[in-house]
C-alpha cells in the first residue's frame, strides 16, 4: 500500500522536522515540509498530498490565505486539509465543533500518538 502523502505547511522549522521524523517513523506516511506559507500552494501542486497540515499564524502568509489558495487549486480537490496550530485552545476548538472555517483542527502542542490518531480520522472521513 502506498504511503499517505502529507504536506506540512508551518514556519516552525524544528517542529516540522520533528513531526516529519515521528510520522515517517510510523512508516505509513511520506511527509513533505514547506516552511513558507507563500510557497504552500506551489509545493502542494507539485507534491499532490493526501493531507495538508496547515499552520495558521505564519510570517509571510497566514493559514487562512493559504487555505483559500489551496481550495482554488483543482488538482488538490481530493486533498484533505487540517489545521495544526498554536493559535487557539482546546476549549476554543470544542466550541467550534473541532473545526476552523469548516476544516478539522488540532492544537499544538500535540503528542505524536494523538496527531496520528487525528490524521487517520481525517483521512478516513
Amino acid at each position, binding site marked *: 500500500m502506498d504511503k499517505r502523502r502529507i504536506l506540512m505547511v508551518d514556519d*516552525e522549522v524544528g517542529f516540522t522536522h520533528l513531526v516529519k521524523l515521528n510520522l515517517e517513523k510510523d512508516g505509513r506516511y511520506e511527509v513533505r515540509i514547506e516552511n513558507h506559507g507563500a510557497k504552500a500552494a506551489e509545493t502542494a501542486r507539485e507534491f499532490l498530498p493526501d493531507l495538508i497540515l496547515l499552520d495558521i499564524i505564519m510570517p509571510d502568509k497566514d493559514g487562512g490565505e493559504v487555505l483559500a489558495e489551496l481550495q482554488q487549486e483543482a488538482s488538490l480537490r481530493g486533498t484533505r486539509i487540517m489545521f495544526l496550530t498554536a493559535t487557539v485552545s482546546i476549549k476554543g476548538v470544542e466550541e467550534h465543533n473541532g473545526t476552523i472555517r469548516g476544516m478539522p483542527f488540532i492544537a499544538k*502542542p500535540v503528542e505524536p*500518538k494523538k496527531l496520528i490518531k487525528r490524521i487517520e480520522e481525517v483521512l478516513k472521513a
Partner: protein
Amino acid sequence: MIVAERETQRAGAEMPARPRVRVLLVEDSLADARLTELSLTDGGVCQFETHVARTLAEALKTLDDGQVDVVLLDLGLPDSFGLETFQRLHAAAPELPVIVLSGQTDEELAVRAVQEGAQDYLTKGRADSDMLARAIRYAVERQRIELALERERELFRTLMEHIPDSIYFKDIQSRFLRISSAQAKLFGFKSTEEAVGKTDFDVFAKEHAQASFEDEQQVIRTGNPLLAKIEPERLADGRLRWALTTKMPFRSKQGYIVGTFGISKDITQIKLMEEVLESERNMLRSLIDALPDHIYIKDASGRFLLCNNAVARFFGLDSPEDVVGKSDFDFLPKGLAQQFEREERVLLHGDTPSVNRETGFANHDGRTHWVITTKVALRDRHGHVTGLVGINRDISERKWNEEQLSRLNLDLARSQRELLATYESLKQANEELKATQMKLIQAEKLESVGRLAAGVAHEVKNPLATLLMGLDYLAESCKSGGEEVAMTIAQMQEAIKRADAIIHGLLDFSASGQLEMAEASLTSVVEQSLLLVYHDLLQKRIHVVKRLAPDLPRLRIDRQKVEQVLINLFTNAIAAMPLNGELRITAAPGTGSDGRAKVMVSVEDNGPGIPSEVLPKIFDPFFSTKPTGMGQGLGLAVAHNILDMHGGKIEIMNRPEGGACAIVTLYA
C-alpha cells in the same frame, strides 16, 4: 305779722280766732299801767295779752325771752329817762315796734323818738281804748312792712354788690341807671354811681357798644328778651372777654317799657376751655381719621355711631357719615356680619373685652383678608353698657407676606431636600462610578492579561509543540537507553503538558469576556459540574452533601461559564481537603435588596481554610496557594470575572467551624 300768721295756722285746726297781740307795757306808775291794761281788755279785732314791766331793766329782760310783739314805752322810768330810754330799748330790739307813751308836757320828746325809729306816740290821758288798740295794730303792721322792705333792699344790694356778673339797668336810651359792683369794677369805676348816665360807648370798644345798643333797642322795640347770647365783648381799653348776655325789657309799674336790664356772665374761661376742647376734639378727629386702623363706636344694637375714614374706605364709602346709623349687615357678607354680631353680643353681655382677635374672610376681591380686632364695651356714667368701641387693623398684607414666606420656606425646604437627595444620588453615582472604575481597572487588568495570554500562547505553544514532538521521537529512539532515560523523558513530557495547561488557562481567561445567555436551572448546572469533577471526588473519596432547594427560579445565564465557575470551586475545595473530606453544596432561593429574585450556591469544604493574609488577594490573577505545578492561579480570577459579567457575585470566607466557604450569588 309773725304772731298773726301763727294764729292763722292754728285757726285752721280749731276755730277762727282773733289775732293775739302780746304787748309789753313799760310803765313805772301802777295806776297808769292798770288804766292802760284795762283799755286793752277789749281789743276789737285783736286780742291783747299785756305784760307789764316797771323798769327798763325789767323790760329788757322780758324782751330777751322774745315773747313780745309790741312795746308801749313810757320814757320816764326809775332806771332810765327821756329819749335815752327809747334808744336803749330800740337798740336791744331794733325790729320790735315801739309806741312811746308821753305825758302832756313832753310831746316834743315823743316826736323825736318817732324820728329815731319809734312807730308812734300816744299822749297819756288823751288816747281812748280804740285809739290805743288801733295805734298798736298799725304800729305792728307798719313795722312788719318796713322790715320786709328793708329785707328786700338788703337782698337787692347784696345781689348788686356781690354777684360777680355784670348786672345793669338802663334807660330807654341805653344809659346806665344802675350797675353791679362787679360791672363797675370791670369798667374801672370807683363806685357804681360813676356809671349813671354813661352808655356802652363810654366803656366798650365801639364795635361791641354798637352791637349791644342795637340789641337793646330791639328789646325795647319788640318787648322780646334777648336770652343767653354768647358774644365777645371788647372793652374800650382793648381787653376782650366772652360773655353770656341776657337783656330784658325794663317795664314801669304801668307796664310801659322804660329801658332794659340784663346780666352778663363772664364765660371767657368756659370759652377758652371750649376752644381747647374743640381743638382737642379736632385733633382726635384728625388723628382717628388719619389712622389706617378702623376705629368705630357702635350702639348696643350694632349700629355705627361714629367711625373714621378708614372704616368708610373699607366699606367702599366716601365719608364716615355714610356709615353712621348702619350696621355690619349693610356692608359685609352675611356670615361675617353674623360672626361679628355674635362676638359683640358676648362682649355687650359678658363684659369681657375681645382683644387682638384675628378674623379671616373672603373679600369682594376674592382674596382672604385678615383683620385683627379689639373691642371694648362702652359704658355710660352709670356704668351701663351702651355699646362698644372697636379697633380693627387690616393685617392682610402681613398675612399674605407670611403665607408667601411659609410657601417659600416650604419650597426652600423641598429644594433643600431635593438638593440633598440629588447630592445623595450623586454621591451614590460617584461611588458606583468608583466601583465601576475599580471594576474597569480590574477588567482592564484582566483584559491585558488576556491579550498577553493570546499573544504569548502562540509563541510558547510552537516551541512546546516542537519539544513534545522531539521528546516523543527521542523516547522511541532511546527505548534501549534504560529506566532513567525513559523517566527523564516522561518528566520532560509532563513539564511540557504543564506549560501547555497554563497557556490554556490563560486563553480561557481571555475568552471569558463574552457571554451566551440562556435560561437554565441552577440545579442541573450544579449536577453537571459535579459530574465533571466526579473523577477527582472518587480519587479522594470525598463525601458530597447536596442540599438543592426544589423551587429554585430559572435564571438567564451563560451555562458553560457558570459551570466553569462551579468546577473551579469544586476543584479548589477537593484540592484543599484530605482523603474522606466532606463537600457540602447548598443552593437556595432568596430576594435581593432591590427585590430581584436570586439564587445563592454555597460550596463548603472541611479543609484547613484560607490563611487570613491570603484572603484579600484570592481573586488576583496568577495568585495561587497550590504547590507549583498544581494550579495556574487563574481559576478564581476567571470565576470572579464571569460572575461580574452576570451581575452576580462571589464571596469566599472561612467557616467558623473550620474549612472554607464560597458563595456564588446570581440574580434573576
